[in-house]
């Protein structure tokens, strides 16, 4: 294992120096020199040197003693809260179906819940060839130990080659524990999944550095190949009542798990009923809203459009709206179909949380605001004036 510079090929162009996130490369006598103490073998320089191919990383990963040929089929974790299957789960089914078809394998849906037999049956209509339904009061609510135990048990029994889950609060909490148990390769928060059909490998592409760098990750020698997948990026499966498949019900009672945490209470505190991670439309306010009362202008437009309310860190820090509405690197990452940024200047951190939205509208008094650089439509104007007028226009148009 190691990284090497081919001195014959290196021309000292320093593209690799700029690509290196670790500041590990310097040019000495017109050749790249890599500081091995700093290098973390991320391969950004290899990519930057594509033209000259002077840098190479040799990988001699261990085989781990796992016979990867034993693993087959694509499995998706179907998330539910209070008996309702979350939107991201239908996205997983849609994407999982595509991957399974590309491999010529089956799609297995894994559902943990209680009294959800009819929903379990329905998962077949949404593309699953097989449904693995763990039924019992102990799995009705999410708890880390229990969920990790049953999903690990599923993986050990069914040996899926690929395992996907939504990159939600639940998925990103317990799926890493499953990966730790089974020595699987887990890629966090993917925005794109593909199959290398020749090598039969999953390619998971994900943002890092707050969305400033994309990385495509593979898991060549371990199974399953696991990924959590960001909301709203993949297309939801379409229901097809003619589909048939098998539903396997696993009883919770008698299983050998222990749970150490106890859920004492579940509190909802989102102001409107729309969760920003699931929303198609988000109207978001920042410092430019000037005072807490003005945030009602954001809420009014969100309501008439049927959207959710978001906020920049500045608005949350000022106490105008709870943290659960914060969009950005220290809040939530969202990708709605429409994001309307009102009085938000567009810090790097805020943009990291919303730049993958399908369509971005920015309303800001300052024509030089950074947010305009990524907005599909920029309105140079005072959000305090534009918002009420726009809300009124939609009320009239939609007859609300």
């Amino acid at each position, binding site marked *: 294992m190691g990284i090497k510079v081919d001195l014959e090929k290196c021309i000292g162009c320093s593209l690799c120096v*700029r*690509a290196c*996130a670790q500041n590990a490369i310097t040019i000495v006598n017109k050749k790249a020199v890599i500081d091995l*103490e700093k290098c973390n*073998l991320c*391969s950004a320089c290899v*990519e*930057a040197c594509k033209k000259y191919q002077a840098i190479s990383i040799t*990988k001699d990963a*261990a085989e781990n003693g796992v016979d990867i040929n034993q693993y087959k089929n694509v499995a998706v974790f179907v998330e539910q809260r209070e008996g309702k299957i979350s939107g991201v789960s239908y996205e997983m089914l849609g994407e999982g179906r595509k991957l399974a078809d590309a491999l010529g394998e089956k799609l297995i849906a894994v559902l943990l819940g209680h009294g959800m037999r009819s929903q379990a049956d329905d998962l077949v209509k949404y593309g699953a060839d097989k449904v693995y339904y763990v039924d019992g009061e102990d799995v009705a609510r999410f708890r880390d130990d229990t969920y990790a135990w049953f999903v690990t048990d599923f993986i050990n029994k069914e040996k899926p080659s690929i395992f996907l889950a939504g990159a939600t*609060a639940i998925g*990103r*909490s317990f799926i*890493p*524990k499953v*990966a*730790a148990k089974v*020595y*699987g*390769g*887990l890629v*966090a*928060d993917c925005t794109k999944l593909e199959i290398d059909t020749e090598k039969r490998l999953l*390619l998971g592409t994900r*943002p*890092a*550095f707050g969305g400033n*760098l*994309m*990385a*495509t990750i593979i898991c*060549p020698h*371990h199974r399953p190949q696991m990924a959590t997948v960001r909301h709203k990026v993949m297309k939801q499966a379409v229901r097809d009542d003619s589909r048939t498949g098998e539903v396997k019900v696993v009883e919770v009672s008698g299983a050998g798990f222990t749970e150490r*945490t106890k*859920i004492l*209470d*579940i509190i909802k*505190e989102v102001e409107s009923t729309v969760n920003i991670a*699931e929303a198609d439309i988000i109207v978001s306010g920042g410092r430019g809203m000037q005072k807490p009362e003005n945030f009602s202008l954001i809420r009014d437009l969100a309501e008439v459009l049927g959207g959710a309310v978001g906020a920049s860190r500045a608005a949350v820090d000022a106490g105008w709206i709870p*943290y659960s509405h914060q969009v950005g*690197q*220290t809040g939530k990452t969202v990708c709605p*179909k429409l994001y309307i940024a009102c009085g938000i200047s567009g810090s*790097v*951190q805020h943009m990291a949380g919303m730049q993958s939205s399908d369509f971005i509208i920015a309303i800001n008094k300052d*024509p030089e605001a950074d947010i305009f*650089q*990524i*907005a*599909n*439509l*920029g*309105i*140079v*104007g005072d959000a305090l004036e*534009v918002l009420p*007028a*726009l809300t009124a*226009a*939609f009320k009239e148009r939609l007859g609300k």
Partner: protein
Amino acid sequence: MNIVVCIKQVPGTTKVKINPETGTLIRDGVEAVVNPFDEYAIEEALRIKERVGGVVKVITMGPPQAEAALRSAIAMGADEGYLISDRAFAGSDTWATSYTLSKGIQTLSKVDLIICGKQAIDGDTAQVGPGVAEMLDLPFVAWVRKIEEISDTHLKVERMMEEGYDVVEMPLPGLITVVKEINTPRMASLKGKMKAKSAKISVLNVSSIPVDAERLGLKGSPTQVLRSFVPERKSGGEKIKDELPVMVEKLKSTILDLGIVK
């Protein structure tokens, strides 16, 4: 209470800019800092210590210069710093990092509570906290926004979820990851900085941690980076400045054209 805080040294990201010609990250003059989410973890550990007494140990895995991150934590008030550093750990993915960190933590004397930031701002995976919990077989709660109660044997915490929060009770020893909402990290005092300068940092490597060499670094990592690239930035679209009714009409028609408003 013996508290261990896992931290990571990351590039300070606010200055991250993209070179428009080469499309690469510009990192000139970007200093390394303690991962901002880990500062909340350090602060929470210090607050617990102030409430119930105890020792706060900070541990990090990284190159030798990651020692600076430990000194920053000591300047804030942490008692001891441990640096896990060895060439054998280079190229670790989240699995191998969780493995190595958990083995490093096992060399410390009795641990009651481990606190991690929810994720690092460079990798953004949020996988190492739960990974360490699993490998040490500890109870785990992610996304903690408040510690409501703490005793020698239990924690009662609030866990952030998409639509609010769950109140969760967990036994100790255990591991939590914390979110920004939990506190406001203190600034290091002058006295703290002086103390940090001369503090002894213990270095742990392959010979001082009992590890399985097959599970380390690039070799022990299930995942590998196939390629990394700078995403195409969205370029700004139309920008208009006009009379209010004109702009409102433009907004209305643009939004209606998207076909998502019912």
